[in-house]
């Protein structure tokens, strides 16, 4: 149900109303996120859902766009939601670049609309934009350089996040863990933002029951040279468990970690009795990691690769009756508390582990959604071993939450920069694509295609201009000094070599912004008719 106008009727709209309204709607979203571009972002206040709550203050273009779920004018709403979706997807995928994409979209769309208004053909303009995009991307790819070393990583962190308490720590963490490292950002317990490292492979979850906490003083179970039985079973009775324990004992195991989804009271009692009475074996039980079947199945696969065990799974009607010693995985150490389960130095075959990681990498290449890709990357990070926990500090819970969000976003951008490299920041990398476009426009025979290419070349300075404007400078005074790796440090107005000054952008975010903005603008230019439905629902998810 529409939240604003419950009496809207179906309607069909034609040109020129469509372009005008689409443009107005798109501008509203773009103008809302534009103040956030650059090193001196201004904030956008979002009215809270409950009046008693304070307003949400955001400087993240993707988040701001996401908060705008509907415009009152439904003709404008079409354009606004079109841009919103593009920005949010970009933010989900690479963590940054949404403001750049918004500015580019507006500049490309407006400039090309002029050509169409002057009699150009929208479809040919679109083709021209798509051809020119390929040229611009090649020019951009030629500027990419790797990001490496603690100082460079910390410098880059500083350029994507203005919070000094976070940047040095993120620089250290990502220098250590690399692009795929496992990082958990949580709320801290003091004013200080702190980090800790956990040795080994960490899963959320932990012990199935406090009764199996073998070291109550440390509030955890820790076992050395331990066997690990990897399953997704819901163990309802002691008798169901007996064959597994017998097999472990026959195999000479002195320590056993049972991984299961559920453990009944009767089964728990049996394990408690073994720990109390038996001198032969110590046992503990942890939750099958992951939420949902897919997650759990992935976690079991990863555990098998790490420990050299074989998962016993319900889905294929397996049970503990036919267990063999080969089913047990092994680790030098493993520990679990009520929240975490950590395997240190799994004793699986290293070649099998490499091959498993390689399979996950291939899956990333084939996956369609950012969510899928992020999950796969998270798994790879875990398999590399070692995890960092960043506790965002602050004087109030709101400050901690804000800092946590900033850290998460910066981490996403850092990952993509480490993975895909960096380019000159401040909009200079885009500006430096102009010569390639100027050359390419000479080769285009079609007038509309050529106009599109020129339009794209012309507007590639839009992000650089806006960054300067947002920082309080008049861009017209600087434009002649921009390009070929040189730009303006928007913090002080000095002309600098952007790379030497550490003013860098993630190549993935600039690339992503350019691709999405140009493709979205090209597509939007060809929208000729809008059909309104009766009472469309407000957009909450893109």
């Amino acid at each position, binding site marked *: 149900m529409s939240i604003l106008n419950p009496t809207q009727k179906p309607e069909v709209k034609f040109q020129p109303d469509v372009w005008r309204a689409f443009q107005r709607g798109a501008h509203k979203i773009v103008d809302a996120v534009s103040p956030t571009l650059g090193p001196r972002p201004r904030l956008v206040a979002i009215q809270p859902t409950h009046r008693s709550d304070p307003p949400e203050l955001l400087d993240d273009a993707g988040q701001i766009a996401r908060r705008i779920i509907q415009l009152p004018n439904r003709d404008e709403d079409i354009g606004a939601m079109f841009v919103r979706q593009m920005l949010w997807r970009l933010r989900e995928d690479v963590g940054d670049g949404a403001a750049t994409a918004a500015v580019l979209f507006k500049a490309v769309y407006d400039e090309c609309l002029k050509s169409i208004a002057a009699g150009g053909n929208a479809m040919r303009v679109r083709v021209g934009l798509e051809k020119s995009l390929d040229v611009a991307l090649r020019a951009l790819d030629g500027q990419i350089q790797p990001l*490496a*070393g*603690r100082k460079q990583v910390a410098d880059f962190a500083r350029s994507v996040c203005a919070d000094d308490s976070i940047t040095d720590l993120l620089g250290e963490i990502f*220098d*250590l*863990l*690399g692009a795929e*490292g496992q990082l958990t950002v949580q709320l801290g317990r003091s004013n200080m933002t702190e980090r800790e490292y956990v*040795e080994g492979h960490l899963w959320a979850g932990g012990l199935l029951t406090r009764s199996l906490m073998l070291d109550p003083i440390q509030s955890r179970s820790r076992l*050395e*040279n331990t066997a690990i039985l990897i399953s997704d079973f819901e163990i309802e009775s002691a008798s169901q468990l007996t064959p597994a324990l017998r097999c472990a004992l026959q195999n000479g195991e002195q320590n056993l970690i049972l991984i299961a989804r559920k453990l009944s009271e009767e089964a728990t009692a049996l394990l408690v009795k073994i720990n109390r009475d038996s001198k032969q074996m110590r046992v503990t039980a942890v939750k099958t990691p992951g939420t949902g079947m897919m997650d759990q199945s992935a976690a079991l696969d990863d555990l098998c690769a790490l420990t050299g065990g074989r998962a016993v799974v319900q889905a294929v009607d397996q049970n503990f009756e036919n267990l063999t010693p080969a089913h047990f995985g092994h680790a*030098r*150490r493993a520990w679990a508390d009520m929240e975490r389960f950590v395997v*240190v*130095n799994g004793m699986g075959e*290293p*070649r099998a*582990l*490499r091959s498993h*990681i390689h399979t996950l990498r291939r899956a990333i290449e084939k996956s369609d959604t950012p969510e899928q890709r992020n999950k796969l990357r998270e798994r790879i990070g875990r*398999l*590399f*071993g*070692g995890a960092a926990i960043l506790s965002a500090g602050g004087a109030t819970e709101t400050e901690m939450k804000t800092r946590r969000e900033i850290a998460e976003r910066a981490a996403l951008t850092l990952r993509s920069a480490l993975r895909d490299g960096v380019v000159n920041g401040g909009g200079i990398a885009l500006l430096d694509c102009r010569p390639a476009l100027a050359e390419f426009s000479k080769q285009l025979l079609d007038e509309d295609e050529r106009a599109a290419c020129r339009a794209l070349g012309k507007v590639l300075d839009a992000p650089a201009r806006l960054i300067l404007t947002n920082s309080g400078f008049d861009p017209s005074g600087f434009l002649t000094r921009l390009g070929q790796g040189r730009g303006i440090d928007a913090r002080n107005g000095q002309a600098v070599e952007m790379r030497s000054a550490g003013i860098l952008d993630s190549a993935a975010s600039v690339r992503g912004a350019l691709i999405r903005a140009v493709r979205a603008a090209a597509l939007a230019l060809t929208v000729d008719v809008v059909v309104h439905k009766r009472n469309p629902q407000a957009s909450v998810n893109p």
Partner: protein
Amino acid sequence: MMTIDSQPDLLLALAASPDFKKDKLLFAGRRSGLYRSTDAGKSWAAQSIIASGTLSVTALAFSPNFAKDQIVFAALPGGMAYSRDAGNHWLWAQFPTPAPYVSALTISPSFEEDKTLFAATLEDGVLRSTDGGASWQAWNFGLLDKQALCLTLNGEAVYAGTSTGLFRSHNGGRSWREAALPVEDSVLSLAALGGRLFAGTESHGLFASAGGGWKQVKAKGLEKPINQIQAEAGKEAFIRILAGDALMESKDEGKTWRKIQLPPEEAPVLLASLFVGFISGQVAAR
């Protein structure tokens, strides 16, 4: 040939003092414990490291500033013994449990300032100490194979050879990335000379780093497992390797090689300065 003692015992580690020409000091690690010679191997004395019983000594290393600081390290099951008076008295540092087997020790060339040293272990990857050996922690981010067989430093990079390949750390052994050799093989030995890294493998001979990649060093006798590489820089720079049962030497950074004659019927296992250690526990000087 010099005999450490009359009892046959496996020789596991051998190290000569960096100031050997002056102090004639040698240490040998065996299953039966630690032995010290102060007369260039002519006579040996068993050293008592722990109060009760003996533990095998699996790796030995001298501080690069030994002449000044007199520090020497001896890896034992469960921990690291270190002496600050050339082996007269020993201190003990415990490893994280369960106790790993240390296969190699490497000390930072700037040990005096950074107090950093590394221990390769067969079960727990690489352990690192940044307080001169008093405490040890595993730093294995990215080290996919925890069976570390050898270690070396090359400039600011630390390299670890494992049972399935070579790993490199650019941040002082805190995280690791695979430094892919052209072959998939166990890396048994490592050494650096003049910025070049040499990696000895189990089945594919010796590799040398070259222009950002690797080049296989080809010579007769190098096709055997390269169990140890010893490289020394300076005016008379040389590389010596134990390839199977043969001792080979190159004085032109690996371009040409010659075989050095060893006593027959003896299997060499270790190189230290001018000395060759044999599996039987004997030590020979060149």
